[in-house]
């Protein structure tokens, strides 16, 4: 199989990830923080090592501010619903995934918050900042946005928006579901208060865990209450991070996979990885645009994700034909109808190619041969 659906989940995983998961299941899958026997302490130590690596990876000095969650969606829900209060106004970009859009809309429907979007597509950094600035109200409490779209490689000027938020006293919540592992992230330098990450995409872990990385200014209220292994007499969750936001047992094999994925990323040159993915994007763009029946969307945003459409066939039909020929892509709206609307892809959406370190130009040859036939 040729796998171009790495924005959904990276596949195949590096052997370091498989080995880390197996090591966990066989050697340290106790319950961390729930006892002081050897296996529990070993598990706690490995989980903490993962917090340390991830904190370093996102530019956070305190590993205890890495909260493990069920995924990036859970992390965003905690950050959004645990932070916003009745009467707050929130800004988000026009490129948001439903993982941001739906929690915001749920709060809006309940009459608790108001939400405005700011445009991004085709705008310079300066212009985006102007658009953000002119939408800020007295009641604005936070800006929530993605670092990179999940349907194309358009990125947002995170450092600049972060500096703006800091200057205005706003919380800055960033969805790094698509950017983590592809773009540099430095929470402290970028003034990010909360960062949501999945383990199983650009960090090469397995599904089942994600993380919410929290800066010093933000302490969301818990969305889940339950056992934390500490402070048992209290009727409420402890104040301390990460336990405050980690009710219940942690998904250890998935955390082990994340540890393996982070170790894998440490072993490769991030510039070489970015250059490889960008090279695939440029080659794919040139060759797809050489076929008159296709159009590449957001063509100037070079990165690990390329969106295109057929001028006559539906995106789903193109993806089906590719699948029949052993090529995995994703078609449709990609859980991001807002972004598709911004990119004017129509009701059908588009076909998304998303690359990883494992993809090659030889695989593009096969892809183009099939696309040519459609």
């Amino acid at each position, binding site marked *: 199989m040729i796998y171009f659906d790495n924005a959904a989940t990276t596949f195949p995983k590096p052997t370091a990830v498989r080995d880390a998961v197996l090591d966990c299941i066989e050697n340290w899958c106790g319950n961390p923080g729930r006892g002081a026997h050897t296996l529990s*302490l070993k598990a*706690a130590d490995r989980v*903490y090592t993962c917090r340390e690596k991830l904190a370093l990876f996102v530019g956070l000095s305190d590993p205890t501010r890495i909260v493990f969650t069920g995924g990036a969606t859970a992390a965003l829900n905690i950050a959004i619903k645990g932070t916003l209060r009745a009467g707050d106004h929130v800004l988000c970009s026009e490129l948001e995934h439903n993982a941001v859009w739906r929690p915001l809309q749920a709060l809006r429907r309940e009459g608790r918050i108001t939400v405005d979007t700011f445009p991004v597509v085709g705008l310079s950094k300066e212009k985006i900042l102007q658009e953000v600035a002119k939408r800020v109200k007295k009641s604005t409490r936070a800006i929530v946005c993605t670092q990179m779209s999940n349907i194309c490689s358009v990125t947002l000027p995170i450092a600049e928006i972060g500096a703006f938020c800091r200057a205005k006293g706003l919380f800055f919540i960033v969805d790094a579901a698509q950017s983590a592992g592809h773009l540099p992230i430095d929470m402290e330098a970028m003034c990010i208060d909360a960062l949501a990450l999945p383990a199983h995409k650009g960090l090469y872990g397995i599904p089942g865990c994600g993380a919410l990385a929290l800066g010093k200014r933000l302490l969301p209220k818990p969305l889940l209450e339950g056992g934390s*292994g500490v402070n048992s007499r209290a009727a409420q969750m402890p104040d*301390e991070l990460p336990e405050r936001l980690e009710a219940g047992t942690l998904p250890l094999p998935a955390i082990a996979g994340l540890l393996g994925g982070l170790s894998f990323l440490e072993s490769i040159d991030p510039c070489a990885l970015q250059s490889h993915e960008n090279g695939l994007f440029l080659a794919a763009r040139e060759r797809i645009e050489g076929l008159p029946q296709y159009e590449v969307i957001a063509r100037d945003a070079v990165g690990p994700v390329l969106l295109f459409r057929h001028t006559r066939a539906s995106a789903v039909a193109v993806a089906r034909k590719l699948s029949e020929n052993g090529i995995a892509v994703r078609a449709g709206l990609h859980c991001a109808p807002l972004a598709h609307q911004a990119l004017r892809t129509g009701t059908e959406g588009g076909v998304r190619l998303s690359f990883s370190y494992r993809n090659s130009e030889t695989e593009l040859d096969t892809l183009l041969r099939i696309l040519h036939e459609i």
Partner: protein
Amino acid sequence: MHITDFSSARCRAALGPTSAALRAVRALQAVGINAEVVALAPNETKRGCAFGIEFACTDEPRVRATLRAARVSVSQYFKRGNT
């Protein structure tokens, strides 16, 4: 064990969750102090179940200074067996 043999006496710092205890252990390791994570009995702390670290009592002044510098919040220090 002789009652005044402080070289082998063990002291504890109550910290709370395991992540706080591990953060303390890492901070101490960085300055060459050995410490291990221990579960504290519910009657050893004011808040019920908690984790702490155990170390040689002779290291206590350095432990206090190191954890203060690392901003690790310690709810109480005590000698093992004395709460």
